[in-house]
């Protein structure tokens, strides 16, 4: 049940989504992955990706102007 962070600030879509997919593939079941991002479109794409893949979202919030963070659990 480890905690991982992926920084994608400055990466435009779809890179945050592509990198999140690559990152979570490397984790163990139960591990949590926090993705920090600043691409507006990912506020739509990342929660949808989590829902469609069955990864529970444990945290999703704004960090500042045009900055967000989402934490999903690999399940």
């Amino acid at each position, binding site marked *: 049940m480890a905690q991982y962070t992926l920084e994608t600030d400055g990466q435009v879509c779809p890179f945050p989504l592509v990198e999140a997919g690559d990152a979570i593939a490397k984790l163990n079941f139960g591990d949590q992955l926090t993705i920090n991002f600043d691409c507006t479109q990912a506020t739509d794409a990342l929660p949808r990706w989590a829902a469609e893949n069955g990864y529970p979202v444990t945290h999703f919030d704004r960090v500042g102007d*045009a900055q967000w963070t989402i934490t999903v659990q690999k399940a």
Partner: protein
Amino acid sequence: MLLTGLGLGIALGFAMQRGRFCVTGAFRDLWITGSTRWLTAFLIVIAVQSVGVFALDTAGVITLDPQPFAWVATIIGAFIFGFAIVLAGGCATGTYYRAGEGLVGSWFALIFYALFSAISKTGALSTPVAALRGITLEASTIHGVLGVSPWALVAVLVTGVGLLARHHLRLRSPLPLVSLPARTSGIRHLLFEKKWGAFTTALIIAPLAILAWPLSWATGRESGLGITGPSSNIVNYLVRGDPQLIDWGVYLVIGILLGSFIAAKASGEFRVRLPDVTTTIRSIVGGVLMGVGASLAGGCTIGNGMVDTATFGLQGWVSLVFMIIGTGAATRLFITGSARVGVSPVRVPADR
């Protein structure tokens, strides 16, 4: 009257920013995840608009005047444009509204897109572009080729898109969609915070696209929404100073920029964001190719892909297909299998 362009542009930019309406994303998703959700939203805009456009044409408010189909230039240009929007990180409108969100990469893409539109339309590249666009077929519309009423095609399109939308609305993911915690309520929440669905956004954009026709027509600019021509006009105006170049379309694109800035600023989504070196170079190359491609094809994702398609122009639909193929080629080259080298999630110590 030109100011109606500004107002419509502001509404459009606002809706696109809040709805995260991205045509590039819609095409790219087909190749990355196979999802047709955003493409369906895009098709909803075309279908609803086709009803409006042919109603306006039938009522005599506007008169559609199809041009011979410049098939060679359309195919080449659409492929180049589709390829370019992946590099630029957004299509023509996408680049405008991201520029309004403060993405410096989109500023670069926008400047080079406008510059190379002008170069291709009226500058150094105008001769080869005009020569290629001179190769035409007599046919210009799908209903013309088939010899049927455009309303038959409107019926087919609306039915098909309706079924596709129903399919998407019935899809259920394993887990519910999580949204950002609400901090405001009422109209403020609705406008600046609540997540707009893809299809809701499409249903807001479609009437704006219809309204663009009579509003633009009233000023003597006889077409619907368009981005490339006005962008080229801005460059020509800045260089030559001829005020005749400032038409309804110029107000429209400036409105898109303003509208998305207002939406982003009011929802805490505006921030000047600097791209890294790779993204900067891609944005510039993407902008250049977008300008050349759109000028060859006679339109961008909006002018061809969303507006000419609604009039069942061959140029629009052939463009749409080749833009999607171009997007696929660039996606293979630059996205799938080529993410940042050495990026991996960082493990956070357990005691945190």
